[in-house]
């Protein structure tokens, strides 16, 4: 009678201080890829969490194949064939990939309940093969890349034979190659009759795979469009409510002296002694944005950890201005003028159980401005936090006192960026700063990075995204297997050439 597999009708979900979903209707056709588009904090994850049974809506109903269903918890969702890959993965770090996949649906012998892992392994490997989801089933989750963690999450859904698959910003953490693969995988899944809900901030991806797209803005339903007949500009306008400009106009460069100078830096793996960062040397000068490009896992993270003091260096020297910081503590480096937007906002960037305001002063709570004789000045902290929230448009339910944990992913990132930029340091190390942000926010962050550059600061950008690598920096250094294999000028290079360097097929 009707061809909708899932219908979410007039869903309303409130949180303290905010209506995350305000009377939203979303209808998913069988076998389609349906994109969900909206700014950070628009309520996309919330809506999907309602479908997955993590939240109960105040109003509205959910139908599956036309019949009203009650989804009280993820088990109900699972029973209805609904699976979800969360924006921030939910894996058990100390379990193997295989154990994570079968967790909760472990195959066991009928009688005594012994685990039948061989059977599970076979099924997992078969799925992995069939959909090109490469994983090492025996590796511990804490040791594998985010890309593989995500493939593990996808396998988890497939293993449970889910037919409605929710992907909450799956591409935010992937490399361009992995994204292409994922797009293929998703199309394959849809072709086999699976229905997919796909959250992304990247319009190209929507264009590439989605059939229809529902747009949310500030918790409200704006509309559902047919992707093929709608332009990217129209979509982003629907989402943000204004025109967005992602191609940056760059001021002419005013290069100054060197702020960061790295000499023959080597970082070895604690486990097997292999050099993760191998004899790397480069400079970043005032007024320039230098970008470290490369495929995930080629030593970029370790390089950044070494620069910021989170990891010990084995040899080589690091200078910040004239000061050698190679063996300084993290605090000393921060105070010497280093800001750091970390790669993993949940692990390093935020204390999720602290309020937003406490997170905004994470690097300066001890400052004269915020503390006197060891006592925190709460009113000062509040005033400062309110200022940053306003200036950087960090949206949350209860403002300064919102628990960081309850904020939307994009707004968590904005909070970190606000904190780091506002330190006013000479060097800003930004690792994947626009990951998971909506186009409006990306535009904002990129402009902010350029503003840093134009005001004579040095910016070291680490990015996995080709368009960002080509668009934002003044200089590209490509890392491959721990070494810097090439230096490119973004104005005179192409995505193709960059790709060759990143894949290790070319070096200079």
């Amino acid at each position, binding site marked *: 009678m009707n061809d909708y597999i899932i219908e979410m009708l007039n869903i309303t979900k*409130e949180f*303290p201080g905010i209506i995350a979903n305000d009377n939203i209707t979303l209808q998913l056709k069988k076998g389609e890829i349906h994109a969900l588009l909206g700014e950070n904090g628009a309520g996309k*994850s*919330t809506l999907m*969490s309602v479908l997955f*049974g*993590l*939240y*109960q809506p*105040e109003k509205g109903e959910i139908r599956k194949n036309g019949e009203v269903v009650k989804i009280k*918890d*993820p088990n109900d969702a699972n029973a209805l064939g609904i699976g979800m890959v*969360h*924006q*921030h*993965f*939910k894996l058990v770090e100390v379990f193997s990939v295989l154990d994570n996949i079968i967790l909760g649906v472990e195959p066991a012998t009928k009688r005594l309940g012994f685990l039948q892992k061989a059977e599970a392994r076979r099924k997992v490997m078969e799925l992995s093969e069939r959909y090109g989801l490469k994983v090492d089933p025996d590796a511990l989750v804490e040791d594998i890349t985010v890309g593989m963690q995500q493939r593990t999450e996808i396998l988890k859904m497939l293993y449970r034979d889910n037919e409605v698959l929710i992907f*909450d*910003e799956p591409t935010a953490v992937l490399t361009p190659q992995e994204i292409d693969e994922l797009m293929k995988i998703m199309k394959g899944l849809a072709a086999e009759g699976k229905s997919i809900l796909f959250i992304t901030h990247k319009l190209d991806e929507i264009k590439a795979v989605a059939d229809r797209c529902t747009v949310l803005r500030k918790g409200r339903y704006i509309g559902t469009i047919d992707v093929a007949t709608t332009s990217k500009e129209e979509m982003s306008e629907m989402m943000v409510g204004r025109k967005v400009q992602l191609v940056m106009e760059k001021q002419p460069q005013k290069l100054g002296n060197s702020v960061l100078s790295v000499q023959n830096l080597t970082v070895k793996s604690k486990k097997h002694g292999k050099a993760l960062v191998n004899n790397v040397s480069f400079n970043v000068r005032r007024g320039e944005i230098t970008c470290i490009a490369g495929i995930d896992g080629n030593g970029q993270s370790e390089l950044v950890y070494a620069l*910021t*003091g*989170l990891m010990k260096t084995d040899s080589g020297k690091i200078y910040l201005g004239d000061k050698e910081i190679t063996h300084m*503590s*993290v*605090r*000393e*480096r*921060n*105070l010497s003028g280093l800001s*750091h937007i*970390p790669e993993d906002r*949940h*692990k*390093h*960037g*935020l*204390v*999720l*159980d*602290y309020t937003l305001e*406490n997170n905004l002063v*994470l*690097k300066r*709570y*001890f400052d004269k401005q915020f*503390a006197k004789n*060891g*006592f*925190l000045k709460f009113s000062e902290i509040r005033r400062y936090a309110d200022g940053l929230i306003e200036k950087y448009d960090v949206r949350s339910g209860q403002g300064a006192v919102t628990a960081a*944990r*309850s*904020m*939307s*992913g994009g707004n*968590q990132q904005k909070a970190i960026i606000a904190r780091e930029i506002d330190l006013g340091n000479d060097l800003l190390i930004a690792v994947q700063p626009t990951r998971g942000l909506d186009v409006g926010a990306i535009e904002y962050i990129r402009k902010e990075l350029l503003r840093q550059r134009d005001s004579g600061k040095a910016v070291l950008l680490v990015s996995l995204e080709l368009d960002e690598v080509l668009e934002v920096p003044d200089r590209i250094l490509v890392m491959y297997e721990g070494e810097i294999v090439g230096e490119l000028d973004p104005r005179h290079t192409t995505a193709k050439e960059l790709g060759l360097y990143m894949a290790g097929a070319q070096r200079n």
Partner: protein
Amino acid sequence: MDNKQGKQSLISRLASSEAFLSVAASLICIVIGLLLGTVVLAIINAEHAIGDGLMVIIKSGFKSPRNMGTVLANAAPLIMTGLSVGFAFKTGLFNIGAAGQYTLGAFGALYCAIVLQLPWYLCLLAAMLLGALWGAIPGIFKAYLNINEVITAIMFNWIGLYLVNDIMYGKGQSPMYDLATTKTFSLRKVAKGSMIPSCGMSDMFGKLQSVTIAIFIAIFFAIIVYIVLSKTTFGYELKACGFNKHAAQYAGINDKRNIILSMTIAGALAGVGAGLYYLSTVAEWNPQVSTALPALGFNGISAALLACSNPIGTVFSSLFISYITVGGTKLSTQYYTKEIADVITALIIYLCAFSMLFRNRIRAMLTGKNRRVNVGKGGND
């Protein structure tokens, strides 16, 4: 209309107030614990379960001034060990070593009192310092060698106990050992000047000599701990380490130093607890029989859990535990043993593990429907 709105907002304010939810959840734990305790009493002896069991436990503490005095005298050291455990919890550490730190504290206090004849506050200081030392050791092992503090603390609990027993006994030759009572010398006899003053407290509570200003000292420490944790940069750092070690490192917080400091302070608090107990002459140390770790150290874990590690809450949870323990000792041995109070406390503590569940339930009840499921770590998305 207006009124209704006012009520509405009060309810929703309560629903989002963490403090209210914690207290309410703890109270529910207590009530259910008492009910289950009654069931246990009924199993042992059904006929007397209510009148001679539950009612005795509930009422005895208030029955006479002396009983009330006993509650206070026992609560004071318990508050300190509770604070000790709770403080470490806030930093993400499990101080199972409170018992050992308490043991060392007892030695420090008694040695300074009996042998050195120092005034009580110096004895208390000695208890604090020795406790701190015993707390620092697991902290150092944890910070520099990444050895789990629980393991080190348990080992040092026993090392401390036998060390202290040996010194206090000294083959019967120790100046602290009273051959007549086979315990350490009673301070009332040999070191009156080292006793914590009563300031009229004992007169208020039926001339029970062990009621001293110790309870106020303990409350004073609770307030200090509360202030340190919630108002100072140091507390900010400690909690940051406890919530997310990686983010703390990223922020430049010296997590090694904080681990050591946190354990040291926790040890100091437990040490003071011992000082309050022995300098109030609630009892003497029996070095030959004390081959079990002092229970007060472990009961501190209960007190901290029941209070969700909140220092002010610890004062109340300790008073409560002390109260029903006194009730337990008043049970008629004809029907029950006094350990039944421990069983009830244990039930209550066990239920505390469900307090998150209760919290969400209460919140749901207050807001009508908003059921929220907490899923793993890693936020809402």
